[in-house]
């Protein structure tokens, strides 16, 4: 009885949490400066960098809204986890190099006092791209771009390739490109968690909920071409609680769209991109989810510790997983044979038909293997040019985009997060110049395509 009375007295005094109205304690705050929609590695990277760059303690109030705390469909955790600098676009190489430098000193950046140091389990095994005669010239051009941008890559002739990796079949190989440093694979879940713990320790608020709509103000304007467009400014983000109809309109200044494969849904909610095609008001976000499969197989006679992340010109890739003769593999399907994206079910026939023949051709030891497991994940596929979209849409005045990475989001996340944080807090890019990855290229219809061999 005395305990009950003590509790009642404690509740009645000012400063206690008791209130006669029952309110969901998990609602996000009513007001915030920046709302980041999407709690994947990109979202948390942006949140971390925003807090790192604020010049006063609690300078910006940042909320990260994530609809699925189990991350069951998130692209980050379903990724193969590779990082490479072997791109053809300088922006991509720079993003990747900067991210590798970040991961090199990850404890300096993301170490939380009194927590265990972050262990990414980074395997420094490098990427190996294998080209035949018809695409060898592309590889050579890319090699000089990569070297100029600072990537440590080397070109190998078929003889050198066979010497280094005797288990490769080099009969149709003309040239190979091998990463020497800063390339390999790591654990995406660790990176995500490290960003999240550090960001939360710096004061970012995590909110579990789904964004169901926006309250925007409208400004009707005329462009120089005489087109009438509606320029929207987001005032409130409606965050709905899981399994409930309760929602909280979060008043905010800036919204960051880091929703990955589902980014286009947010743009539809705002009503952007519904105008006639080839006009500014018809410019939607060209990002859609694409399903990709990863298969795990076991081959006891396969390549050993020096097995790189091999990418073949036919499109297949594989890498070693652990020390027990397990490997993971996958490929991109043809444009017209894209699998259905409504669920994450795996198509096992795809492995038999499309992947295994090329695998066995490239590595004869893989003729006998056993598939032990498989999973599927979404790419936030940029249908325009398969490269990231960073920046502001002309018709959404305060929505910053960090999406469309098309499979490279994880490896570019630290640097992309920093770039977007610079855009928001400094107004322009400070370290890496990524203006080429903005919406300008979509408006001008000039795709910034990667000239890769796959």
């Amino acid at each position: 009885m005395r305990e009950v009375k003590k509790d009642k007295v404690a509740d009645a005094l000012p400063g206690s949490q008791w209130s006669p109205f029952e309110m969901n304690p998990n609602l996000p705050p009513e007001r915030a400066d920046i709302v980041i929609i999407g709690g994947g590695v990109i979202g948390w990277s942006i949140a971390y960098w925003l807090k790192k760059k604020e010049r006063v303690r609690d300078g910006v109030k940042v909320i990260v809204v994530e609809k699925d705390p189990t991350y069951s469909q998130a692209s980050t955790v379903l990724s193969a986890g590779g990082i490479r600098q072997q791109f053809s676009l300088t922006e991509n190489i720079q993003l990747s190099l900067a991210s590798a430098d970040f991961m090199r000193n990850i404890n300096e950046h993301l170490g939380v006092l009194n927590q265990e140091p972050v262990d990414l389990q980074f395997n420094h095994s490098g990427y190996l791209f294998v080209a035949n005669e018809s695409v060898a010239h592309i590889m050579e051009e890319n090699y000089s771009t990569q070297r100029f941008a600072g990537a440590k890559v080397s070109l190998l002739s078929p003889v050198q390739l066979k010497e280094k990796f005797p288990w490769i079949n080099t009969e149709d190989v003309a040239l190979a490109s091998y990463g020497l440093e800063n390339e390999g694979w790591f654990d995406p879940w660790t990176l995500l968690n490290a960003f999240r713990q550090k960001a939360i320790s710096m004061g970012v608020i995590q909110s579990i909920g789904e964004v169901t709509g926006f309250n925007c103000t409208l400004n009707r304007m005329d462009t120089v071409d005489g087109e009438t467009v509606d320029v929207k400014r987001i005032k409130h983000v409606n965050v709905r609680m899981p399994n409930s109809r309760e929602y909280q309109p979060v008043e905010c200044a800036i919204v960051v769209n880091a929703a990955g494969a589902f980014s286009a849904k947010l743009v539809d909610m705002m009503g952007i991109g519904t105008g006639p095609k080839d006009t500014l008001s018809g410019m939607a976000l060209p990002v859609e989810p694409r399903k990709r499969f990863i298969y795990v197989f076991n081959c006891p006679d396969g390549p050993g510790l020096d097995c790189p992340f091999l990418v073949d010109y036919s499109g297949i890739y594989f890498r070693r997983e652990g020390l027990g003769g397990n490997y993971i593999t996958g490929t991109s399907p043809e444009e017209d044979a894209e699998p259905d994206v409504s669920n994450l079910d795996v198509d096992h026939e795809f492995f038999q038909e499309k992947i295994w023949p090329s695998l066995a051709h490239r590595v004869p030891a893989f003729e006998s293997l056993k598939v032990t497991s498989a999973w599927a994940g979404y790419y936030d596929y940029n249908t325009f040019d398969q490269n990231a979209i960073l920046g502001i849409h002309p018709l959404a005045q305060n929505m910053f985009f960090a999406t469309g990475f098309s499979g490279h989001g994880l490896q570019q996340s630290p640097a992309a997060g920093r770039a977007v944080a610079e855009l928001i807090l400094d107004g322009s890019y400070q370290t890496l110049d990524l203006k080429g990855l903005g919406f300008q290229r979509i408006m001008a219809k000039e795709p910034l395509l990667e000239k890769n061999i796959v």
Partner: protein
Amino acid sequence: MWNCLIVLVERAMFVLYGSRFAFRVNMAAPLVPLQRFCKLASLHVCGRRRLWSSSVATPPSLYKRLLLALTQRFYDVEILLNWRSQLKSQALQKKNASLTPLEHEHLNTVSHTDRASLGYYHYTQEHYGDNVASAYFILNMHGSFRYAGQSEWFRSDSSGKFSWDFVNQKDSLLEEVDLGHTVINQMGLGNLVGNPLRTLSLRGCHEVDDWALARLHVFQDTLEELDISCCPHITIGGLAALRNLKGLHRLNVSSLPRLGSPGLVIIMLEEMLPLCQVTAKGYDLSLTQLGGN
């Protein structure tokens, strides 16, 4: 006097009713800057989820637990401890100052401390050349080296003094370098680039990790002997980086505490480096009996 009274009352409340109530009472106290409101978010600040990591065999000492408790309650202690760890890492980066500035745009990702320490060996490099600067760096780190074509080793004695004869040998290239039990890290290893090293010893270096091993690919043509035993931060991911050193003849990977299955790793290393003789002592390689009938 009033301050002391308030603090005493607050302490008493804390003891009797728990931290939540005590902080409520004290909200308007003048000692607010030293105390923290009991918001849920603040509990995350210093990893309060686990008081200590579950992998540590024994709980940390009383001193560490006291520091942890203080850090969770006071901003000042948290900031001071952050400063202390930052100063430590800055001192380490300064010791490992890079000879050559990083040429590319990703220099901007280098933290401010690294950029500040870039100029330390610049004077030596300008006046005596890269080779002398590398030699000076090694002696400063309390390591030792031997030039190609000579048989005497240049080393510093226990108090850190060394002879300056190496200054006259501007064109000699390093052949054997012993940086065992020093604080060399991946940045410092970049200072040895350009020398045709045949032997490199990083025995017992606490700052050498997987990324440092990844930088060794610059010596892939000449390196014959590598000793990375007793380095606590090397894991299997870093050993995979030795793939480039195909000319290696002797490799010592004894006593690496973070290797999960050392027997298997040794076999795979021998397979990866065919010319190499792998020495791996300090592991319990006996076969364990699996339980069951």
